């Protein structure tokens, strides 16, 4: 599981807004056994960013998500993706924040039964720069 990102921040109103572009390469098969067994209806995949700020000890923001149905291609090879949701901080904690951890996780939705949340085994730490970009076309 590999992710590469480049990013920059911009101020909106009073909160920091982060822009992240990323690549995701993921193989949802687990060796010979696919996670898509007879009781798995779909996987809800999401890329989340986790970080700490002065205001809040823990922040988690979902940047992107995708529904993968049983039968869909289990290999993900996404390049240069923009985040699906605005990466707003509750305050100004993104500027100069050196440690934003991006993790890919997924919710297994069965045909019937328990709904587990699984965290992928790779994660990437990215830093945000110390300055704001004022004019950026996104």
């Amino acid at each position: 599981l590999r992710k590469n990102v480049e990013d920059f921040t911009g101020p909106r109103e009073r909160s920091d807004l982060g822009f992240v572009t990323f690549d995701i390469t993921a193989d949802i098969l687990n060796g010979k056994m696919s996670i898509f067994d007879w009781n798995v209806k779909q996987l809800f995949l999401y890329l989340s960013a986790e970080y700490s700020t002065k205001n809040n000890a823990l922040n988690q923001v979902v940047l992107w998500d995708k529904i993968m149905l049983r039968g869909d291609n289990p290999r993900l090879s996404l390049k240069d993706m923009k985040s699906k949701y605005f990466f707003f901080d509750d305050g100004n904690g993104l500027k100069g924040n050196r440690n934003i951890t991006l993790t890919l996780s997924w919710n297994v939705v069965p045909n019937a039964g328990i709904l587990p949340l699984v965290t992928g085994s790779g994660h990437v730490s990215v830093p945000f720069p110390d300055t704001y970009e004022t004019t950026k076309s996104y």
Partner: protein
Amino acid sequence: VVAAAVAAMLSLDFLDDVRRMNKRQLYYQVLNFGMIVSSALMIWKGLMVVTGSESPIVVVLSGSMEPAFHRGDLLFLTNRIEDPIRVGEIVVFRIEGREIPIVHRVLKIHEKQNGDIKFLTKGDNNAVDDRGLYKQGQHWLEKKDVVGRARGFVPYIGIVTILMNDYPKFKYAVLFLLGLFVLVHRE
């Protein structure tokens, strides 16, 4: 099928049985019925205690979480305070002043050192997050708005509750048949 069952119930055989039962047996049957209802209530309350949720089983009412959940699916919830709210989880929450619980996924959380948390939700099948659904001026949900977190589910079964809500005549018919069945059934 319902009509046939009713016809069978009202057939003379059953009425003869009822006439043959003396008062004591009838009271016995009524008590039996009462016990069944009480046991059911106790199981429900027990579930509330074990899961920590005031509503441990809910029926999905809308299609906003498709294709994962459809209208009529049954969800099993827990609401333990020790379980922290994290993104990706499916929460059932109520908006202040509204009765209907909503089942959506957590999109963002901001949690303070002391555990105070505010979070944003969104339905998988909705294009936008839930801010438009919250109360006027409310931007975030808090722990107090949460009824529980979805831990497991069973499809379709909740359709019966939706049918009973939308068609009260159906509800009365079901209750009437159940009552009749229990009273007439001889153990």
